[in-house]
């Protein structure tokens, strides 16, 4: 592994580390707001990954001079990833807003935004429902 290869790929690896940090927060943390923050971190690292693909050494931002006198020697970075990521940022905010609205609604309905407590509540509701239907169908009373 040459040092050129190492430093040429170091940026990708750093973004992957950030991505995995976000993924870890989403999977391991129980608080719903924190999960959304983790999702945002994941998202931002994917953005950075894309932009770094579009970068060209010695290039400049993809904007022509205002008078449109274009110097053919100037190298521009690839504008396509920038466009895709611009769209992705706005869509990301929209999904974040939707997720946060869902959290507010969940909190209003169940009084908690912790995953563990929500699971417990859900089990309780499921047990009640199955008891009801079980009795109606002549079955035994489940559990206790």
């Amino acid at each position, binding site marked *: 592994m040459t040092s050129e*290869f190492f*430093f*040429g*790929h*170091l940026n*990708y*690896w*750093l973004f992957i580390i*950030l*991505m*995995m*940090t976000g*993924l870890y*927060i989403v*999977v*391991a943390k129980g*608080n719903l*707001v*924190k999960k959304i*923050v983790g999702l*945002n*971190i994941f998202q*931002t690292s994917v*953005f*950075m990954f894309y*932009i*770094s*693909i*579009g*970068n*060209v050494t010695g*290039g400049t*931002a*993809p*904007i*022509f001079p205002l008078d*449109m006198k*274009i110097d053919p020697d100037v190298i*521009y*970075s*690839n*504008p*396509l990833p*920038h*466009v895709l*990521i*611009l*769209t992705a*940022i706005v869509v990301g*905010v*929209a*999904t974040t*807003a*939707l997720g*946060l*609205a869902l959290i507010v609604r969940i909190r*209003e309905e169940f009084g908690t*935004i*912790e995953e*563990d407590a929500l699971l417990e509540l859900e089990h309780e509701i499921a047990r009640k429902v199955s008891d009801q239907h079980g009795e109606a169908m002549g079955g035994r009373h489940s559990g206790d």
Partner: protein
Amino acid sequence: MVLTALAVVRMRSLFAVVMLSGIFTLLSALLFVTMDAVDVAFTEAAVGAGITTVLMLGTLALTSRHERPTARSPLIPLFVVFVTGAALIYGTMDMPNFGDPTAPAQTHVGADYIARTPEEIDLPNMVTAVLASYRGYDTLGEVAVVFTAGIGVLLLISGLRRRRRKDEDNEGSA
């Protein structure tokens, strides 16, 4: 940035977590500037760091401020995360070096957009040209997504005050 992200993992106060995520986004905007993506940088700073933080603070105001520690062990998630990360890093082994001008991403449509924007669109900013003209349908789809999300948020939140008043009435009469 890695430090900020790790701090988010450790922190229990949600207010601090939200602030740190704002800092994280601003740092990423700086990184976008150094990677020549100025349009992306200011969108990220305004939309990502601004609007998202405000939305999250609003959610915190409506819910709770602290996270309870979970009882589950973090081993399985850690394992999953490490395997995924290793697979992704293995995937980057075949990628071209950072900033390589002969990379496939640079030699196909990207160069085409740069070459044809002056004569076909005649706008100085290539990102705007591609966004609004070459890939206009993408932007239309984006507007549709934002509209749908807006409707969803309104539907979810709108009944809040009405329901709360109804609850109070019930408690008062009971």
